[in-house]
């Protein structure tokens, strides 16, 4: 890995020198801005009526030069009943050329499209996550490492790519979470790292359809020196995003979906509270599909800011896992009202197999 980093750094520096712009910043070029979201959620069901998550998530952006860019997001959240302050991401980017950007730090995941993109408050039409795509689901909400990304044109078609090396998931072995993963650790738990990537194709010339394929592999996910150190994890995802205007009903239709699967190595061994060892087949999968309709082409300002959305999701969990046993199916409908291009009110109703039927209301202000 050291050799790899050395060679990669050499390529990085070579390109910087070739373009002669690493140190060519003129005075006054360092530009800084803050944007972000503020969110508040209200939950109502038979057992709870409460304002829950109040989130404030400023994003700090520095354009140091035409080549160098830093982006960082902090999160101040109250979802656990106390104020939590966290670093969502801190990512340093070097724009090598038209088609290649190198980046390092803590960054939004490039596995699938939901958690790194469509989970954002003003992109998600619902106040909750699909089954299997939130906490306890498959995949990270943030990664730590380095990577490369870009867009390659082929005629009218675009191909978007992301490749990365990250600390990757840690296998959990405590009795309640045996076989699950901590995907977002700040440091690695052994001498291995995960690598992966996403390749997305935009086959239509107006970029309205995007189909993405993601892979991630880590050969060793257990803690160093433990029996589970060499338990591997392979993850795959397919995502789809499509939008179009339907002139006869003066509306915009959006369809989004994603399927995720992961396979944990068969050599995982866990210990029950009574001291006996056991194992189980651990290959969960999940999917969601969402459709929304907004009469955005109407002249009536009130009506064109209304959007209705429907979502269905399914989380297939390992039968014999301490946290598994039953699969989760969830269906939601939402009525949203757009206050601005990045601010909206959401009211949604959720019917979920492992929880009470719940009404959510959420306010999201982008700033």
């Amino acid at each position, binding site marked *: *890995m050291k050799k790899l980093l050395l060679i990669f750094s050499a390529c990085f520096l070579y390109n910087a020198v070739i373009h002669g712009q690493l140190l060519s910043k003129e005075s006054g070029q360092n530009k800084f801005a803050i944007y972000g979201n503020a969110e508040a959620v209200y939950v109502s069901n038979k057992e709870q009526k409460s304002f829950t998550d109040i989130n404030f998530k400023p994003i700090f952006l520095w354009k140091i030069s035409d080549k160098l860019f830093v*982006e960082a997001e902090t999160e101040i959240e109250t979802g656990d009943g106390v104020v939590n302050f966290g670093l969502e991401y801190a990512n340093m*980017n070097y724009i090598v050329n038209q*088609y290649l950007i190198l980046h390092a730090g803590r960054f939004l995941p490039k596995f699938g499209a939901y958690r790194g993109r469509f989970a954002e408050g003003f992109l998600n039409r619902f106040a909750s996550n699909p089954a299997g795509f939130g906490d306890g689901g498959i995949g990270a909400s943030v990664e730590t490492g380095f990577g490369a990304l870009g867009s*390659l044109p082929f005629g009218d078609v675009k191909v978007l790519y992301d*490749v990365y090396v990250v600390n990757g998931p840690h296998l959990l072995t405590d009795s309640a979470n045996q076989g699950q993963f901590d995907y977002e650790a700040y440091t690695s738990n052994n001498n291995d790292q995960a690598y992966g*990537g996403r390749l997305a194709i935009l086959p239509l010339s107006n*970029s309205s359809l995007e189909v993405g394929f993601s892979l991630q592999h880590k050969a060793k996910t257990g803690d160093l020196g433990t029996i589970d150190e060499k338990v591997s994890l392979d993850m795959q995802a397919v995502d789809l995003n499509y939008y179009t205007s339907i002139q006869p009903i003066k509306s915009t239709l959006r369809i989004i979906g994603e399927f995720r699967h992961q396979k944990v190595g068969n050599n995982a061994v866990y210990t029950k509270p009574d001291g006996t060892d056991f194992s189980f087949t651990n290959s969960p999968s999940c999917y969601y599909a969402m459709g929304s309709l907004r009469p955005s082409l109407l002249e009536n300002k009130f009506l064109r800011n209304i959007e209705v959305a429907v979502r269905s999701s399914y989380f297939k969990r390992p039968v014999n896992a301490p946290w598994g046993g039953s699969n989760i199916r969830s269906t939601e409908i939402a009525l949203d009202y757009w206050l601005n291009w990045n601010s909206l009110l959401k009211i949604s109703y959720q019917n979920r197999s492992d929880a009470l039927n719940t009404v959510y209301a959420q306010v999201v202000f982008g700033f």
Partner: protein
Amino acid sequence: MKRSLFAILLIIFTCSTFISINGCFVSKTAASKSGAQLWAENCNRCHNAPPPGEFSNANWDIVGTHMQIRANISKTDMTKITDFLKSANR
């Protein structure tokens, strides 16, 4: 694993350098798209397009670079988009 990873990175690095030196394979239709068209297509891919006039010229440069990274948009396309958005501030 490390060899395959290195191979992937090397291929991407080589391809992107080759394309940047020799010009890319963009159709005439794609190359002739205006900033307004690219703004509508690329922004609406994920979210409502922010209106021209939303930010100052300096901030459009910052937001544009942020979105170039977040949404894998090429530098050429993003420059056209930000030029279009800045034009509303004149």
